[in-house]
């Protein structure tokens, strides 16, 4: 992974963290389960979907519309990267 890709990867997570922090007044860890720890409700779940779609210009449909993809900042960032057709963060492409 190049430094540029690294920066871009980080910025997806940072943008999600900024959104969650603005809405919940709590800064989440990237691997924190937002639902199990009470930060996110069923109503906030749909706000997350709309936020990701608008901010990252992706469409989240079908099997991707599952709570497991929205439980952590990490999971949401991975979903965004996949929908943008970017290679997995662990790859060396």
């Amino acid at each position, binding site marked *: 992974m190049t430094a540029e890709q690294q920066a871009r990867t980080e910025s997806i997570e940072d943008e999600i963290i900024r959104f969650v922090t603005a809405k919940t*007044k709590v800064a989440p860890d990237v691997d924190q389960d937002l639902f199990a720890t009470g930060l996110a409700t069923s109503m906030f779940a*749909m706000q997350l979907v709309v*936020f990701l779609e608008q901010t990252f210009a992706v469409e989240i449909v079908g099997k991707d519309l599952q709570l497991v993809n929205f439980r952590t900042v990490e999971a949401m960032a991975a979903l965004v990267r996949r929908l943008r057709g970017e290679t997995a963060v662990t790859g060396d492409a």
Partner: protein
Amino acid sequence: MTENESVAVLGAGVMGTGISTLVAGQGLPVTLVDVDAAALDLARREIRNGLRHAQLMGAVPADRDPGALHTTLSLSDIRKATAVIEAITELPDLKAKVLAETAAIVDPGTPLISNTSGIPIDELADSLPNPGALIGTHFMNPSYLIPMVEVIRGPRTSDETVASVLSLLTRLGRRAVVVRDAPGFVTSRLLHPMINDAARVVAASTASAEDVDALMHGCLGHPTGPLRTADLIGIDNLVDSLNVLHARIGDERYRPSELLLDKVRRGELGRKTGRGFYDYKETAE
């Protein structure tokens, strides 16, 4: 339950839109009526989003296609409905008028379900040729996620109407609790004054909205807290319902608090306008 079952929903506000999402999501055709074309446009978008929300939360069967959605400005389009759910503004006279117009259009005996958070059902029955067909429901918001519905049996509601509506709710995957007719029934009688008091607590600077909700959630197990609930209900609707309850119960706890009235004047009605006690815009700003 017949194969020709179809539900009409009157009023494309928060509740009518959510109930239409529920009906479609559970695979039944739904006709949504409103007097405002812009409200119907918005409702179609909200229903699309609501169906996705229901899927996200696992609240709709994965193997079932949604029922067809038809939106219309013409009440005569509901002629063939097998049940009508009236979910217009919480104004008793307006509800009575629309229910009477509906009764003149649908087959006699078709259940007329008035969705209200507090208006006694029997007050609406006088305007109808067949008061036995009228029954009340109090769906919560969002109707497509909350599995329980309060059902209000008026003194003149017929056994057939009760059975038919319970069967429809079962078909929609809801659990029903039937209660007797009274202002605010059970849920609003208890919830609305609590929300009103929560707003007074914030107005008195005893605690912030966040802290009130955090305490009610963390100490008392309320799922979201009363002020998030206010934003979800819609603060204009909450004020309308409090006025209905205050006029009938007389207790000052039901008189809408100044902070709620202020928010209505400022157009801060909750989720539906993007701001209430909280901010709901889909940006970090």
